[in-house]
């Protein structure tokens, strides 16, 4: 009655003792500039080294500017010092690093899967909460803090108590114009911002099997937004087909042997979960957030909720506060809300299929007057492939900006910032207060909804423009 989590867990168990949490081996340690510098300093001051630099992989993403003529040194000296520290640390300890000018550089959670670094049944850690993305491959993947980054660098292991499990069983087919981002937002809305705390979510059911790898990554990426430790999807033929031939995936006969092993990675039909949620994907509409938490979400056809209609006092208070911050009145139809900015990109929705969906809406149309719209490919290869398909022309002709890979406007740690009081339809993952810039007002949406909103200048159901 093993669940997939148990199979991966047991395979990575290095030490089990009564008095301590299990010590698990880490197959892949991804690092970036923001959460690693202090960990390397800790290593140095303790006289320790990196145990497995060959299982560690670095890229520059959070502070990387995305303008087409970006270069080093960065204009921001503090950000430059951070990139400089990452370079020095990777050089000193022998870790591969994708520099800002490298053709494969990009957002760590876009780059790593694309290079075949993420394999089924593996353990993947990164000092970034959206490490949950990689559960899409049937990997146990979660975000860690800087002290834990230091721990993994020093030991290639992580002490860990096994999380509880929450099965999210999805049935029905997503309708045209409805994305896995919408499914993710709907699930977060049902569970609440802290509803997944202490749990790993395993997504199961025929709907999940029907999703592409990129759709699965979006869904697992957003798992952390309801507090879940990780998202997880059992690997299947879709997974194997995606991995075949990727740079770091096993090749030739090794690949076939790996697939034989990967086929054993699923939850047995009698596996027990601590909780279960059933979601019907058919009839699901595009979703859009109205507040300052991803759980404050509704369907595009709905109106801004009246806080008084909410059940719990804390929810009501949070809603009142969020509406004040967002500058919204209860009862306003979501589709009447004008937008000033549109951001298409991030580790949630910066992959090729996301750009194709957005381009499908933007083709032969124009961005509304007064709207600034950015398309930021998640990685160099995403950008190159999109350009080979002519998507850059579609966006540029429509009046979108076409930029270099990076985290960009998802979190405003680089020059891409939403100004105070401005409203942004964003394909990123967090609509927290001030996240996209101080006083910025974020509405989380799918790539298609973002593109449709750029065209009309207000939050728009992409199905209107299909």
């Amino acid at each position, binding site marked *: 009655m093993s669940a997939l989590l148990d199979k991966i867990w047991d395979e990575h168990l*290095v030490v089990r003792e009564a008095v301590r949490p299990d010590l698990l081996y880490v197959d892949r340690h991804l690092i970036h500039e923001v959460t690693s510098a202090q960990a390397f300093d800790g290593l140095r001051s303790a006289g320790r080294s990196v145990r497995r630099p060959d299982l560690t992989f670095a890229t520059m993403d959070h502070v990387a500017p995305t303008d087409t003529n970006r270069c080093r040194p960065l204009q921001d000296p503090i950000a430059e010092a951070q990139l400089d520290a990452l370079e020095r640390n990777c050089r000193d300890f022998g870790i591969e690093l994708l520099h800002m000018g490298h*053709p494969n550089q990009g957002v760590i959670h876009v780059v790593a899967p694309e290079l075949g670094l993420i394999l089924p049944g*593996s353990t993947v850690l990164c*000092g970034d909460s959206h490490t949950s993305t990689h559960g899409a491959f049937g990997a146990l993947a979660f975000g860690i803090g800087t*002290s834990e980054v230091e721990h993994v660098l*020093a030991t290639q*292991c992580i002490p860990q108590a096994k999380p509880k499990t929450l099965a999210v069983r999805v049935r029905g087919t997503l309708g045209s114009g409805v994305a896995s981002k919408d499914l993710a937002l709907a699930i977060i809305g049902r569970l609440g911002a802290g509803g997944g705390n202490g749990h790993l979510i395993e997504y199961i059911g025929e709907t999940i099997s029907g999703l592409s790898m990129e759709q699965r990554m979006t869904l697992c990426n957003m798992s952390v937004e309801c507090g879940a430790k990780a998202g997880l999807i059992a690997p299947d033929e879709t997974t194997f087909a995606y991995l075949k031939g990727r740079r770091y995936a096993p090749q030739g006969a090794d690949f076939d042997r790996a697939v034989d092993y990967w086929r054993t990675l699923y939850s047995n039909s009698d596996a027990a979960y601590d909780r279960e949620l059933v979601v019907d994907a058919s009839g699901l509409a595009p979703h859009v957030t109205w507040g300052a938490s991803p759980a404050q979400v509704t369907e595009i056809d709905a109106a801004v909720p009246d806080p008084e209609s909410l059940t719990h006092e804390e929810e009501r208070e949070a809603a009142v506060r969020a509406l004040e911050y967002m500058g919204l009145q209860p009862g306003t139809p979501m589709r009447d809300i004008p937008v000033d900015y549109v951001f298409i990109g991030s580790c949630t929705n910066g992959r090729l299929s996301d750009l194709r969906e957005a381009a499908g809406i933007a083709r032969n149309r124009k961005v509304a007057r007064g709207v600034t719209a950015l398309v930021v490919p998640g990685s160099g290869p995403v950008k190159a492939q999109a350009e080979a398909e002519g998507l850059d022309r579609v966006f540029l002709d429509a009046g979108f900006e076409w930029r270099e890979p990076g985290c960009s406007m998802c979190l405003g740690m680089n020059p891409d910032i939403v100004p105070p009081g401005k409203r942004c339809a964003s394909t990123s993952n967090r609509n927290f207060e001030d996240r996209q810039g101080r006083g910025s007002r974020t509405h989380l949406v799918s790539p298609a909804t973002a593109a449709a909103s750029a065209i009309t200048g207000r939050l728009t159901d992409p199905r209107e423009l299909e």
Partner: protein
Amino acid sequence: MEKFKEFKGLVATLDMSNVDTDQIVPKQFLKLIHRTDFGKYLFYHHRYTEDGGPNPDFVLHQPRFNGATILLTRENFGCGSSREHAPWALRDYGFRVLIAPSFADIFKTNCFKTGILPVELDGDTVEQWFKRVDAIPGYEITVDLVNQTLTGIDGFSSSFEVDRFLKHCLVEGLDQISLSLEHEAAIEAYEQTHREPWQASITAPDVGRLQ
């Protein structure tokens, strides 16, 4: 790390649920590469107005909370990003104990690593503590980690659960990396017996070198 056995301190309240790590320490301070002095950035956008002046309306600016070392707040505190800068800022500002109905997972782990004790209590008990802190100026709580109790200056008391291992690390001031390195032989044995192609090294000679 400093040992944490018993602690007595002034309690401040932050009556908000889902306080995310972007609120605790905004992203512009995440570019810094040291881990000290983050206290001045704590709740930055709440504490300071856009022109940089102090915001007198922010709850921690109330004179009665001056010098607070225990923060009482609501559910899902610390949700969002994995930034350890959030507990660094709380600790540097002076907080050693956080009390709430729940904390986000990564944040909670980061607190223990930073020498902050996150205490989880049920919502009703948290409400009881809120009423006391609101009613009695200068309200202090004694936190006894060894016996897992909180006791207020008025005698009100509650017990709390805490992970046994994490408690042990705080009480003894242990460095978890040293503990794991005690198992170096086991780690090495694991590496020797796990050499399948899908566990292979990821270093390739040309990656990262194309400039």
